[in-house]
């Protein structure tokens, strides 16, 4: 089971890294989503794996429990990573609508424009 989880984290990470190295905003967002999955599962796994041992206290029997702390941390992380994805999507969308292109790298034309703006500030 451990191999399964570790390899799944590895596969998700590899896919995420490959996608964030693309040149357009949408694949980068997908890559960040894959990385979020990988990170969440990774954090969850730091509590070690257990089957049939949910951290719900059982008053009637002496049973073992899985580690609740990483679960609590990952729960908020899942919700926060949604918020982060949403902001990312919004920024990508805004950039696309403003610039009419969803490339993520700065082009030479962008840099010239930035220089000009700086020049005016002095």
């Amino acid at each position, binding site marked *: *089971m*451990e*191999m*399964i*989880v*570790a*390899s*799944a*984290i*590895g596969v*998700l*990470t*590899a*896919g995420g*890294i*490959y*996608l964030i*190295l*693309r*040149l*357009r905003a*949408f694949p980068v967002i*997908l890559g960040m989503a*894959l990385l979020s999955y*990988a990170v969440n*599962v990774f954090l*969850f796994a*730091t*509590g*070690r794996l257990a*089957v*049939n041992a*949910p951290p*719900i*206290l*059982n*008053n009637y029997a002496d049973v073992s*429990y*899985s580690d*609740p*702390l990483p*679960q*609590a941390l990952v*729960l*908020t992380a*899942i*919700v*926060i990573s*949604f*918020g*982060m*994805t*949403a*902001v990312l999507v*919004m920024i990508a*969308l*805004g950039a*696309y609508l403003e610039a009419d292109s*969803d490339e993520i790298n*700065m082009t030479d034309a962008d840099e010239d424009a930035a220089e000009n703006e700086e020049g005016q500030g002095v």
Partner: protein
Amino acid sequence: MNDGSILALVAILPFLGALVPGIMIRAGRNACASFTAVPTILALILLGTQVPAVMRGEVVSTTIEWLPQLGLSASFFLDGLGLLFAGMILGVGLLIILYARFYLSSDDPMGQFYTYLLLFQGAMLGIVLSDNILLLLIFWELTSLSSFLLIGYWKHLPEGRQGARMALTVTGAGGLAMIGGMLILGNIVGSYNLTDILAQGELIKASEWYMPALILILIGAFTKSAQFPFHFWLPHAMAAPTPVSAYLHSATMVKAGIFLMARMWPVLAGTEPWFYIVATTGLITMVLGAVIALFKDDLKALLAFSTVSHLGLLTMLLGFGTKAAVIAAVFHIINHLTFKAALFMTAGIVDHEAHTRDVKRLGGLAKLMPITAIIGTITALSMAGTIPLNGFISKEMMLEEAAHTVWYNNPWIVPVLATLGACFSVAYSFRFIFHVFGGPVRDDYPSTPHDPPFGLYAAPALLTVLVVLIGAMPFLAEPLVTVAANAVTGLDTHPHLKLWHGVTPALWMSVVAFAVGGVLLVLHGKLDAIWARLPRPEAKAIFDAVMERCVATAKAIAQGTHNGVMSRYLALLVVASIAVGAHAYFTSGMAAPTRELLPVPPLIWVGWLSLVAATWLVVSQHRKRFRSLIFISIIGLVISGGFVYLSAPDLALTQISVETVTIMLLLLALYFLPKDTPAESSNGKRLRDAVVAIAGGGAVAALAMAFLTRDVDSISAYHLANSYKGGGGTNVVNVILVDFRGYDTYGEIIVLGIAGLTIFALMDALLRGPAAKRLRDRAFSPDRSRDRHPLMMVVATRAMLPIAIMVGIYIFLRGHNQPGGGFVAGLVISIALLMQYMASGFAWAQLRQRIEYHSMIGWGVIIAGLTGVGAWLAGKPFLTSAYGYLHFPPIEEFEWATAMAFDLGVFLAVLGAVMLMLYSLSRIARFAGETINVTPMDHDPSEDSADEQEQKEGQ
């Protein structure tokens, strides 16, 4: 009232007062100036109440703890030295407020000026009253900042802006050095309290850190007090309005360095390094400043270099390290203030009336503006050191000290150079008198000068009276000089200030100075021509070149590493992380695995295979964006299933509901984004990225495997043991969220709320900009569905809404004891609401939405916060929860817990944030030509039947 708490008030008054002029300027310039004077006068009166105690030799002090962990406290103390400087700062400040009222023209924003002035005054007061060196450093930096504003007050003048920047750069850099020096001092002594440090002179001088501390502190003091080789900023700062020059550059800012050297005198002075560094620098500065001053034609530049020279004189006296020299220095601080401030104001009056400050275009003003001429002449004579004015006495004392000083076994060099400085000092002072006021009246002034109104010359006139009074009756100043000199030296000094000391070597030096000075002035025309031909380094050019190189270097580094190619940054980041991780992995030497591997049932294999396949499809098909979205949703489902199997029911619930809203969000965004990604990367780049990605994935998998096979000790046992006892819940994950780590959760819902508001604000800005036009003009998705709001979907979502809400409430209520809680409930209900938007359209659903999502976020955070605050009322720390049981007879036992109110806050914040995010994204559709639907669905069969009914009835 002698508990000293009044001192804190004195220090804070100008800062409070700084708020006033900006408002009072609306009531007119007189009101503005008067209200600026009020805090200054108040502070002066409060200071006055402390005078008797200080004169008795007491030290008034007060301490307000601020950050005791850092050794930082708001402590103030007032001794003789502090009193001298505080009196000068406030007294001259008052005169400057009066003078500036008449000096500034109606075009200048006066409210701004007075605000800056009071800020500066407060910062200066802070320096001289601080009893904590960290606090002193804060005020020190504040003077740099506020003087930057004052020097650059005339923003439209390039010289003003450049001068302000130069002053800020030089004094700011010195300030940084001083921070280092002060921290070293504090470290040696083990306390940041100035009084503690001052008592440890022996310890500091014996420390091996003495030299670094000395040099760093002196760099700070020398830059501030314009000592060679940092003197060049002061003349450029003369681009400031004259009241600023008179205030900052005669009485206050440049004296801050002198103050600091005097303050630190007991712990730093008296050693060889101190003597050679400080006295020599002072001597060079004094001579150099006096020589340059003679050849300056701009009145203010002449006075600026004269100030540099006098500051050098003070530095040299402090550098001598003798009691008598300190007395001379303290006395000269007072005298320099009186004549130099008056001279600056005189220069300002001349400039104001004649519209020029160029000495070569002036002359003969004595007949046109006699009052100004009298003031200027008396004070300039004092500057030259003429008997019987106050400048003479302190200058004699300086020469006397110089005459006894042996520099590197050479008894001649200091007296000769001091006399040389005095010669030039006499020469430029005479030039100020004879070339400006003397000579025939000219007919080519830019404007015909005459004496200004009383308000403008009142302040310099008062100072001139002081010049004469102190000169004639030096014993008047004796008590103040005594307490100040006592405070500097920490010893008992008995100064006897008198005008006539008999025929001493110093008197002969003075006589020589006057004779040579007179000759120099007579020869000025010829010397000036020689001076103009002499090659000499231009400080501003050097400074500009250095700055340019710094900027160029910084730019090269910034643009080389930060060139806008994001994919490269990310690649570097990933590679660097892998390298660091691999280094740790291979060098740390891990223990052998301790955990047995769990078995893998067949169903898990299926899940794993679908996850790997889905990931592969997302990556390989990412150019077809819509398709890749479908594949990515498979991954989320598999992970939710994995959470169920691996005993994390809460995570499974959260993951699956977040998955739903994420896909909705991405679908919404994809409507506006291009549907395909063009193939741009070369095969080489793809291969490189694939290698990086596989290395990264492999590294993370190896790391995960490494810890999954080993046991760990964690604090979780505590949570499991106390969840029910302390938090009253059996779902430990939920209890951790709302109780043990409730503060984290509180932060997280705030972050989520901020994310929602950010998206709303971004969208708002976007729709106001050029993007809105582009949105209107473009068809984003050519192949639209022709039934936008299908009947089946509308009916199904409508029927599901109450059920979904009930499920949400159920999940919320059971959360404390069973899987569920505010996060999941918020997500479930937001999905139910989003379905309504999807089914019947944005406008239709929005019309029926009564609660603003913004306020929902706000209420969520407020409720969660108030629950936390409630614990304070019970005398417990923030967010301590309480719970109990109620018993309603027909039903079972019923639990109440304050954690539930907190969870309600979480629920509301999550619901509000998620809805606001998707709402904002849907809102743009309206700009993209989406028509408003007034009916809930495209085709409503009930209306058809109603129509038919009508038709039938009609028939």
